């Protein structure tokens, strides 16, 4: 999805992992995905550069749909849909 589309999607869960370094954001995402339903969208906020590579790979392995990343000032918003 384009950054414009991502900004307008309806998010069920926002996980703020900006206070942690790797592997914190990945584990926060892992814990949070269990709290939303299939088809719902979650965003992960991370200030860790590695997370924007980790989350798409994790989604591919776990079968979730990675939707895209928006780069904000000093952090990333990484979007995924639970499958």
């Amino acid at each position: 999805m384009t950054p414009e589309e991502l900004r307008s999607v309806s998010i069920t869960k926002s996980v703020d992992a900006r206070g942690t370094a790797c592997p914190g954001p990945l584990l926060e995402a892992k814990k949070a995905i269990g709290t939303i339903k299939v088809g719902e969208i979650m965003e992960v906020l991370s200030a860790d550069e590695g997370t924007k590579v980790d989350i798409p790979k994790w989604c591919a392995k776990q079968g979730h749909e990675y939707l895209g990343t928006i780069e904000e000032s000093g952090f990333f918003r990484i979007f995924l849909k639970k499958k």
Partner: protein
Amino acid sequence: MEQKKMCLGLFSGSVDKLTAAGIILSGAAALDMKVDIYVLLQGARAFRKDIGDDAGKLQMAENPALKDEFLESLKNLKVKTWVEFFKEAKEITDVKIHICGLAGKIWGAEKLDDFIGLTDDICGIGAYISSLEEADINLFI
């Protein structure tokens, strides 16, 4: 999806390598892998109940002179301790921690109760080799 299995031979009892093991373990947990950890020689000393997270009692494997800088940086970056990583991974996925019986004896720890509470059992080399053979991923740290 078939659950993948990781087997980790944890020989090292140094704080830097234990931290690396904890981070790798977190990655395996995020992917719902089953993990078997075999704690060998030096590793068993770190798992002693009176040592564990007490970094003052652990060495660095790489460049001992950087220990203070390493620990200070981990703290500033809010990185968990190696024991916290292991504990969190156990809460997320199926992680079993097995202590080598001989290794425990070398460091004066013979009973399960002598080790930190995360430990599941004390075993011999046969169990480790069997697990190595069955695992999809094998690591030795």
